[in-house]
């Protein structure tokens, strides 16, 4: 199973994400944001970091990178699964591939810590344990959307993870969502930071393993 890790100028979680995906059994390639060929991959990951220095708004400039045209096509043609982690999630929101937006954390500062998350029993993570602990590291992690969108997300089971203690003030404690066709996934927590033995917590690897099973199920 092949995965692409897209690198924008300012991306900084690419290597750890690649390593975690490899541990999960993916064959991984880096894809530079000016390239536009991603159709051979089963999974395309937009990793965390500060693409374009987070200038303007996080993800606002990266969404106009050449590779994003291919990501849109890949999504529409359902060629595989797109996963945006942290800044990757912000890029997917800016690109309109996921509903809603991110704004500054309610606490008014950058948060970097391990948080407890409830993994919702959706078709993406149906086998995963229901409570995991993952890292978050963001300034703009407060997920917002209009009440109708949030209602739709709840109704369709598009909310994949919720914070137990909602550290950033996200509406309905949302930490991860999928689009309505479940081929675009965004999550603020960093599963790649809890995937290696030295992390002493493998909850993130479990998330990647679940994703791999989900891709298998979609291919069948």
């Amino acid at each position, binding site marked *: 199973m092949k995965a692409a890790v897209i690198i924008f100028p300012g991306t900084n979680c690419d290597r750890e994400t690649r390593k975690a995906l490899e541990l999960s059994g993916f064959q991984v390639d880096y894809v530079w944001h000016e390239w536009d060929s991603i159709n051979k991959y089963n999974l395309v990951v937009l990793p965390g970091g500060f693409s374009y220095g987070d200038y*303007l*708004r996080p993800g*606002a400039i990266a969404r*106009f990178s050449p590779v994003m045209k291919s990501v849109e096509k890949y999504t529409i043609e359902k060629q595989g699964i797109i996963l945006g982690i942290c800044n990757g999630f912000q890029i997917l929101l*800016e690109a309109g591939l996921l509903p*809603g*937006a991110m*704004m*500054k*954390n*309610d*606490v*008014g500062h950058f948060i970097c810590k391990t948080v407890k998350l409830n993994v919702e029993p959706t078709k993406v993570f149906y086998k995963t344990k229901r409570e995991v602990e993952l890292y978050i590291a963001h300034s703009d992690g407060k997920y*917002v*959307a*209009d009440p109708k969108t949030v209602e739709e997300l709840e109704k369709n089971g598009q909310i994949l993870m919720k914070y137990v203690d909602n550290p950033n003030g996200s509406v309905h404690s949302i930490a991860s969502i999928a689009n309505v066709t479940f081929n675009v996934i965004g999550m603020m927590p960093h599963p790649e930071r809890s995937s290696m033995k030295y992390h002493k917590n493998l909850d993130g690897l479990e998330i990647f393993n679940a994703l791999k099973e989900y891709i298998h199920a979609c291919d069948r």
Partner: protein
Amino acid sequence: MKFRFSIKVKMAPHIFDPQASTIEKSLKKMSYPVGDFAVGKVFDFSIEAPSEECARSIAKEIAEKVLSNPVLETFVLEREE
């Protein structure tokens, strides 16, 4: 011809902005009688176009598509002399 524009982007009124709230609270602590505080960004630029109408529509497109996020923000477009 060259036309100069200024675009002001700020949070939509129904969105709580922690940055504005923090600044407002601090000013109140200093006993300034402030309220309804908002924080935004200003973008000044010029556009090369055959007419003002054409330049204005390009500026509006830039504001809608790139400089603001319609989920959170509103913008005001002004022509500068």
